[in-house]
């Protein structure tokens, strides 16, 4: 594999890249948050006077916000500080800043909080011990309800040869980005300015506007290098607190979470209960009932996206003639549900794929063949009635099955080989714009987005521009600007950077080349080349140095600029099936099929992953080394979701394991050799058919490990993660 040297590598290796946690300014104060001492209760008082009495300490509570941020309208449903009621553990009550971090923490300790504790509601199944009855949709516990039906489901179940009914449970998983959330705020004059480690500077600006009640035009957000996001750094989080303290103190204020606070406050994927019933007739799936209870913590009613989006993944990319799907987003006294690399899709794939293994097992079919027999077909429609196009999963499955067959033949006793499939749709629907500038030295892409570590910005966008223009990669640079300077973009999330923002870069480059063609008087496409260190525009047999094609004004202004935008298309589902709530269409058809070989200790239940193979439908590979790294990284992260990662919420609403000692991500010792294969030729929404790569490769991992564990030991585990204890229990159950 030939690797392109990452343009940010030297900076990062030398420790010169400024991450959020590195931010520093002269005269800066350090901030800390005052957190609620219990998960739920009536807040009688928050007394900041003792904190304020400490030298140099500034403190801000709920009642101070209007004086600092003005009388603009603030989002009443998302107060920055708990006011009358505490609704989740460690909810912020106030924020303090001091000349040193130690004094800021002393100030936090000096705050007197009077909370009349009430019992926390934390367990989904305690709220709804049976499936929610009619009228549950209007329960205060329900943030969203989605319901859809297609075909005569009752009849299909009534006439089935066999019905398989199962319940799956999944755990809360955390993003565990290496870098904690961190920002540095300044409030001068009427401007609110914040530098922050974020996946979406423009998203933060929008959020800040509604949280603080100030216009977007008065807010400037500047991204830093991001030490991992994985969905956890999408929305605004610490920025408003730092900004209010900056306004109150007149000084720059830095706020960074400790790693313990990351766990306590993080927006994570929360637990779920998934019930799947499948009716089989003549060896084929005749109908399915899907029922989902998703814990969304304190997510707001009507703002839940996860339930309506996820439930499609519980039908999966399989033909299902009749189905009924119903999901409840259930509110509990936990922090709000937040995205975690392919939000909730690995959990859905685990449940569905494990269920399909069980169905295949019961009807005596080969699980791989059973899947292949039911996959959607190119040109057909999805279960929800959307046309299927660019669907590479069947090809990936065929390759995965061949590998699985070979590994099975080689596997010693006690080992097992399993296959798992994960379907995804790139977040290419969200919009973005960009500007490219051609100088006599090279091409610059101006971005508000920062590189979050995946390479999608520094490598991916540069590769798209290099491909389109013909320039070598080292002549393409990404320049970062704050939200006042850079063109708008939605953010680095949803695997959309290359697939969506790449489309904007591609369009900007086309526009640039068109201008050059005009100036060259060319009728054939223009390409850029480097000839003896000089940039040259070439069209057929005619060529001229770029320096001669730019006007003096352009040369003075830094070059010839062109804009591009990508406001992605989105498909549509058959709305006639919807009974309640909102379902979402797929923008493109991505996914992966994985194979794992594991060894299971049948006495202890311990699982060792021996080797792993990933077959990724990538549409088209834009940068092989980066894509490869994304697949490897996602598999490793998925192994954590599969085997060890679990935020343990106690009955009293507190998190039992807020740290890396007991919240166990895989270490290098647990990582097996990983083979990566790209399946190309099934185009997606991105430049020249590229699909997003950041999220899909995590989706099949828990399902794949579960299938391999079952093959190795017979243990059919229905709860994530597959700890030794759960495997041993399943073995005992037999």
């Amino acid at each position, binding site marked *: 594999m030939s690797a392109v040297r990452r343009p940010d590598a030297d900076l990062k290796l030398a420790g010169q890249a400024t991450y959020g946690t590195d931010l520093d300014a002269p005269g800066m104060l350090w901030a800390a948050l005052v957190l609620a001492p219990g998960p739920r209760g009536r807040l009688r008082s928050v007394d900041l006077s003792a904190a304020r009495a400490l030298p140099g300490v500034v403190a801000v509570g709920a009642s101070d916000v209007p004086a600092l941020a003005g009388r603009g309208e603030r989002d009443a449903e998302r107060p920055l500080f708990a006011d009358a009621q505490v609704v989740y553990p460690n909810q912020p009550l106030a924020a303090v800043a001091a000349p040193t971090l130690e004094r800021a923490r002393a100030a936090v300790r000096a705050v007197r909080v009077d909370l009349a504790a009430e019992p926390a509601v934390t367990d989904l199944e305690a709220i709804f011990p049976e499936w929610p009855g009619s009228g549950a949709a209007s329960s205060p516990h329900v943030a969203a309800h989605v319901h859809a039906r297609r075909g005569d489901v009752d009849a299909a179940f009534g006439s089935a040869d066999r019905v398989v009914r199962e319940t799956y449970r999944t755990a809360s998983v955390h993003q565990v980005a290496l870098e904690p959330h961190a920002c540095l705020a300044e409030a001068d004059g009427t401007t609110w300015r914040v530098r922050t480690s974020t996946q979406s500077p423009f998203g933060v600006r929008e959020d800040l506007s509604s949280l603080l009640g100030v216009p977007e035009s008065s807010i400037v957000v500047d991204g830093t290098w991001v030490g991992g996001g994985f969905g956890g750094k999408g929305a605004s989080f610490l920025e408003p607190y730092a900004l209010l303290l900056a306004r109150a103190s007149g000084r720059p204020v830095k706020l960074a979470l400790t790693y313990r606070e990351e766990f306590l406050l993080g927006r994570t994927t929360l637990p779920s209960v998934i019930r799947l019933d499948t009716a089989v007739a003549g060896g084929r799936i005749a109908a399915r009932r899907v029922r989902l209870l998703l814990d969304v913590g304190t997510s707001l009613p009507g703002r839940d996206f996860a339930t309506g989006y996820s439930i499609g993944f519980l039908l999966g990319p399989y033909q299902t003639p009749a189905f009924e799907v119903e999901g409840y987003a259930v509110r509990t006294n936990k922090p709000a549900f937040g995205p975690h690399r392919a939000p909730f899709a690995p959990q859905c794939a685990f449940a569905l794929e494990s269920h399909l293994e069980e169905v295949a097992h019961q009807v005596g079919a080969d699980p791989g063949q059973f899947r292949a027999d039911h996959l959607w077909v190119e040109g057909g429609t999805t279960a929800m009635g959307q046309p299927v196009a660019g669907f590479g999963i069947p090809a990936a499955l065929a390759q995965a099955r061949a590998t699985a067959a070979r590994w099975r033949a080689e596997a010693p006793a006690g080992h097992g080989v399993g296959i798992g499939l994960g379907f995804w749709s790139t977040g290419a629907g969200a919009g973005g714009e960009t500007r490219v500038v051609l100088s006599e030295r090279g091409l610059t892409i101006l971005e508000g987005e920062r590189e979050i570590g995946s390479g999608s910005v520094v490598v991916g966008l540069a590769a798209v521009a290099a491909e389109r223009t013909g320039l070598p990669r080292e002549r393409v640079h990404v320049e970062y600007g704050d939200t006042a300077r850079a063109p708008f973009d939605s953010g680095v999330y949803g695997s959309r950077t290359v697939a969506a923002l790449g489309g904007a870069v591609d369009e900007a480059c086309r526009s640039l080349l068109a201008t050059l063609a005009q100036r060259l008087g060319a009728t054939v496409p223009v390409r850029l080349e480097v000839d003896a260190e000089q940039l040259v525009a070439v069209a057929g047999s005619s060529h001229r140095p770029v320096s001669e094609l730019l006007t003096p004004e352009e040369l003075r202004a830094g070059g010839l600029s062109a804009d591009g935008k990508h406001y992605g298309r989105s498909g549509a589902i058959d709305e006639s099936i919807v009974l309640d709530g909102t379902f979402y269409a797929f923008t493109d058809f991505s996914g992966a099929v994985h194979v794992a070989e594991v060894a299971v200790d049948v006495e202890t239940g311990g699982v060792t992953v021996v080797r792993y193979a990933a077959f990724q439908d990538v549409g088209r590979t834009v940068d092989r080394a980066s894509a490869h790294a994304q697949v490897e990284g996602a598999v490793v992260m998925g192994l954590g979701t599969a*085997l060890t990662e679990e935020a343990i919420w106690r009955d009293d609403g507190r998190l*039992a394991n807020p740290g890396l*000692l007991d919240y*166990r991500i895989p*270490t290098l010792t647990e990582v097996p050799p990983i083979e990566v294969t790209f399946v190309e030729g099934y185009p997606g929404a991105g430049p020249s058919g590229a699909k997003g790569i950041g999220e899909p490769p995590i989706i099949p991992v828990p399902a794949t490990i579960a299938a391999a564990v079952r093959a190795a030991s017979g243990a059919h585990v229905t709860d994530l993660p597959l700890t030794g204890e759960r495997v041993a229990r399943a073995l005992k159950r037999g």
Partner: protein
Amino acid sequence: MSAFELIVPATAEEAVAALRAAAGDGVAALAGGTDLLLDLEDGRVTARRVVSLRRLPWRTLDWNGPTLTIGSTLPLRRLELDPEVRAGFPGLYDAVRAVGGPALRHRATVGGNLGRSAPASDLVPVLLTLDAEVELIGAHGSRGVALDRFLVGSRRTTLAAGELIRAVRLPERRPSAYLWQRVRPSNDISQIAVATAYSPTRRTWHVAIGGVAPRPVLVPEAAGALGGGRPTDDAVRRAREAVRRHAPVTADKRGSEEYRRHLAGVLLDRAVATTLARFA
């Protein structure tokens, strides 16, 4: 972490004097720091003075006939890499390898491990089966205490104010083994751990269990069931049953009581088999 004064004495006398001078004022002895610094950072331990033991000449490994004396500030990595230690106390080698990764073992020490008395210590179960004696030094000289008496509970020992652990003495080489189960195989705290050793001179088995609160303990019922010498299959079955029944296992966030008792039996079986395979 709150600020503290760091004192780095050059001799045992100075170290003891520094500890005594600060007694009652919040003082902690620092060896490798792999455990203490975390507790200082998180505020579980508050100390205004920290006495570093790094200049003391205690990074030693001395043999006297069959007896091994391990200096308290000897890094675990040195024990791990010593072929004679591995041959004479294979269970101790297993246990040392269970502690963190190589980088951490370059810092972590035997004395720190015992002095901090962590419930999940990987070294303590094995040292209990080896009849380890802890040598303490204080203002009034030295004293030796059996490890089982030295440890009181979680983070509690019989170490007096102003006293330090100078060394740990193992009276004789013993075939031994240490096995553990964790949610994550590496870099984790054991859900349950079992140590077994056989004394060829006394013809006795020794069984200890770790990962149970508040401190690792000997399980004499299981050791007794194994009898003297090479146990029969039936004796191993009875020992397995004894450890399951008598080990002070409770449920916590690392596992249910039922599962941990089950593991104790499984691991005892395997530890005995491993120990037998290590008979000379």
